[in-house]
């Protein structure tokens, strides 16, 4: 099931579209390098990666892929082929989520590395000089894939139109919540992702980000959140009935 999901997410037209989208950071840093923008360097790389990659590209790629896991099987009438195999529904759900994790990591981690490499090469600093920046963004990307994926996967199990709700959460709530006062920003995933980045990258665009959560705690919160979402999705899936039209 996991292999089937990986093949589906990576080899269909959806996979090619999300693959192209995932490489936008490389397109951007390459453009900056070719245009010889004077301020282009590791600091500008950080400034661009949070709003462009984490808050747009990554959310879109995880949303499109994770919401398709169960809902498209239901909408496409292919779910009976899986439900008539000697595999429990929770196992099917977990296998699909595992397949999504692999596919999303394959789609989203390499562009971070290559974009960082182009930036370092342009700045002439060498790949190891700002390795904490690379490590920070790789960690944040991996955690975002896990957490957003779990959230959108849960939505795809419980909602008929998960994409709409996912868009609202991913692009509206996650974008505006940071500017709300008090502890409200803690109700978003991006808050913990930025906390991870701030904890791992001492100098950069997130230096001024106000958080009282350390990187390890933020990472733990994201992983626990993901586990809860996936378990809830599996439980709901187990109890669900599937009335499909021919």
């Amino acid at each position: 099931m996991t292999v089937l999901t990986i093949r589906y997410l990576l080899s269909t037209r959806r996979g090619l579209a999300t693959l192209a989208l995932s490489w936008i950071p490389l397109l951007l840093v390459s453009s900056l390098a070719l245009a010889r923008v004077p301020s282009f360097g590791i600091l500008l790389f950080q400034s661009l990666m949070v709003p462009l990659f984490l808050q747009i590209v990554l959310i879109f790629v995880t949303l499109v892929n994770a919401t398709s896991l169960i809902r498209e099987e239901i909408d496409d009438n292919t779910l009976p082929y899986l439900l008539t195999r000697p595999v429990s529904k929770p196992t099917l759900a977990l296998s699909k989520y595992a397949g999504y994790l692999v596919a999303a990591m394959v789609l989203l981690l390499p562009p971070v590395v290559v974009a960082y490499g182009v930036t370092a090469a342009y700045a002439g600093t060498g790949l190891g000089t700002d390795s904490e920046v690379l490590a920070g963004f790789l960690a944040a990307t991996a955690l975002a894939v896990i957490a957003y994926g779990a959230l959108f996967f849960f939505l795809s199990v419980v909602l008929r139109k998960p994409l709409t709700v996912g868009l609202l959460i991913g692009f509206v709530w996650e974008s505006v919540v940071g500017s709300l006062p008090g502890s409200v920003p803690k109700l978003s995933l991006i808050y913990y992702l930025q906390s991870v980045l701030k904890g791992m990258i001492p100098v950069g665009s997130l230096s001024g980000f106000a958080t009282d959560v350390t990187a390890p705690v933020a990472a733990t919160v994201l992983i626990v959140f993901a586990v809860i979402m996936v378990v809830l999705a599996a439980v709901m899936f187990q109890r669900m009935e599937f009335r499909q039209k021919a």
Partner: protein
Amino acid sequence: MSAVVEAKGVMKWYGEVLGLNGFTASFNPGITGLVGPNGAGKSTLFKLLIGQLHANGGDLRLLGQDPWNNVELKRKIGYCPESNQLYGWLTGQAFVETLLRLDGMRADDARKTAEESLAFVGLTGAKDRPLRTYSRGMRQRAKLAQALAHAPELLILDEPLSGADPMARVQILRAISDFAKRGGHVIMSTHVLYEVERVTSNIVLIHNGKAIASGDLHAIRALIDEHPHAVRIATSKPRDLAQALTAMEHIVSVEFPAPETLLVRTRKPDAFYRELPEIVVDRNLDVHGLESPDDSLEAVFRYLVG
């Protein structure tokens, strides 16, 4: 052996819509046809049997067990859904092989078994093509191949001949018969009685979510033969085919409801289905789909239920 499926007063509601209304019937070993018009509850019963739906009331037993969330029971059943939707991006071989892997089969065994199953339904030549390129008849056979591949005890086939061309029908019916001859049990639904008759005389009639009759279909044949049976044929040469068919004395009427479509009514469906493949081959005609609108059977059911 006791009944393959035992249903006692099974109820299924979809909100305020009734899917099954106290359905009570026994499906005996061998091949049984579940016959009823569209909307009668055939697919609902099947979805309950494969554990896709949960009954609101009554008692349903498949091979002596409750099918709802019964993982082990699924090793014993092969299911062919009515929908022709498949994983279009997979080849026929990959489709069957992947599902066999879900049955717990090792990769080498799954590859070999998938090849054998696709050969069994006559799809060897197309096994490496993506499923999206398959015709309706080929899709039906691919669905049957995945249902048969893991050697189940019971096949549950939802309208397995729907839309299949004459050659595909022959191959599908042959595969079903061969499976039963090896000791397997089959429950196949259809709204075309004559399709079932080719492989069994054992039927359960379902209407408005209730089993209204069961047993030997010959008992109701005389009644059904009073009503002309309609067949919609998709062909690129409808006029040539119409000309050939009107020579048959049992043809009551021929209509052209749409381009490349012929609607035929016959008083002898058996003879019609038997003779059609020969006509198609002899005259080199292109028939790419056969469907029976269920109005003729609906008339019989209205009569049966008063």
